[in-house]
């Protein structure tokens, strides 16, 4: 979990490689209440972000280590992870 008023964002696999970072802590952006809101905000940060998050395969998300749909709520203190569809096994 992140500190007060912030979100901990994690990126995995090719999403991590494209963004050039595995983890960052950001202040909870104004107006962001769901995963979908957060995705829109992330895409607005830079053309590289927009391209990474709209890549051929839909990006998946987990909030506090549970899979989350775009309408899942996010709040300050959450750990939010983005990653490609999983390919283990």
């Amino acid at each position, binding site marked *: 979990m992140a500190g007060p008023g912030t979100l901990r964002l994690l990126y995995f696999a090719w999403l991590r490689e494209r963004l050039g970072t595995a983890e960052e802590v950001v202040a909870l952006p104004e107006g962001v209440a769901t995963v979908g809101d957060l995705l829109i905000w992330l895409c607005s940060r830079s053309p590289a972000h927009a391209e990474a998050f709209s890549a051929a395969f839909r990006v998946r998300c987990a909030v506090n280590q549970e899979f989350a749909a775009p309408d899942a709520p996010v709040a300050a203190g959450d750990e939010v992870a983005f990653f*490609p569809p999983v390919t283990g096994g």
Partner: protein
Amino acid sequence: MATIRVQQADFDIGAELAAVSAGRTDIGGIGCFVGTVRGDGGDRAIAAMLLEHYPGMTERAMARIAAQAEQRWALLGCTLIHRVGRLTPGETIVCVLAAAAHRQAALDATAFLIDWLKTRAPFWKKEIFTDGGEVWVEAHATDEDSAARWDENTP
């Protein structure tokens, strides 16, 4: 009750099978699946497979998958082991075991465990080729289909 492990090191499947059934006389069958690294990625030879995961969430997701299998099929034993890091062709990646009183439950639970592990636990594979190139493995729609059949059909 289930055994859940994420590790870089190889594992001994015989020892895992023995651990599941040790001292028990209520088990009638144990199903097992072992996944291994293949050496061919289409037309390019594979030098290694790199397994990335999400520490914390991975164990949580695996425990949930095991708990669902234990409940659906009244399992008497359940083991999920997934390796991470750099693995070379021929090495084991993953192992699932399901022990039950009867054979069909053990076999069905084994298929369920590997289907869900492949689609509902945060692991990602990257193929590293002998020519120096590397490619993230893409998710297969067929894997999602295999996993989804367990949503609809309760045993």
